[in-house]
């Protein structure tokens, strides 16, 4: 973990996941893109997989967050209770402030 990078968000902050489908490697699935979530945990900074995937050094490291979504915000027809959630780890450059 590289801790030099300053994190923009704190646990509890509302964020939106950026929308995008680069032709290259990235780790943000389409099903969370454009969705509103809440920062659950800030993990510190980690090497950027979008650079590592091509033999790059992964720097600058990206703050990594565990983001929580209400299932009913992700899926229109979610059949379970409204309290059910989904957690996923997202790098900061895929997050937008609301």
């Amino acid at each position: 973990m590289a801790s030099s990078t300053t994190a923009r968000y704190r646990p509890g902050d509302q964020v939106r996941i950026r929308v995008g489908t680069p032709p290259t490697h990235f780790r943000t699935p389409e099903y969370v893109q454009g969705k509103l979530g809440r920062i659950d945990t800030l993990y510190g900074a980690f090497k950027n997989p979008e650079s590592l995937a091509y033999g790059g050094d992964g720097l600058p490291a990206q703050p990594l967050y565990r983001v929580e979504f209400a299932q009913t915000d992700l899926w229109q027809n979610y059949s379970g209770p409204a309290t059910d959630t989904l957690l996923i780890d997202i790098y900061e450059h895929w997050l937008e402030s609301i």
Partner: protein
Amino acid sequence: MPKVHDRGSWPNDDPIDHSEHEMEEWERKVDALSSVLGEKGLKNTDQLRRAIESLDLKTYESLSYYEKWTAAMETLLVEQGVMTTAEIDAKMSELERGQK
């Protein structure tokens, strides 16, 4: 359309197949080779993922797990100039002749 590997974004109504697949020796070796190449600096997790993700949809869905890993490791080794596809083809023929 989501990328081939982005399965959370793909609808799927198939039942989950609970049967366990007994690992074959070649798969066990491929599993280990991935870690060995990691130690040698010839592969990292994201490189392997990237190579798997670049398979076309039909190949991605039809190859088994370690078949995909084999294809991806070949991509990475060829790309880094460790070996060529022609060398692998030739070695395969040689091994095949040895089996007969």
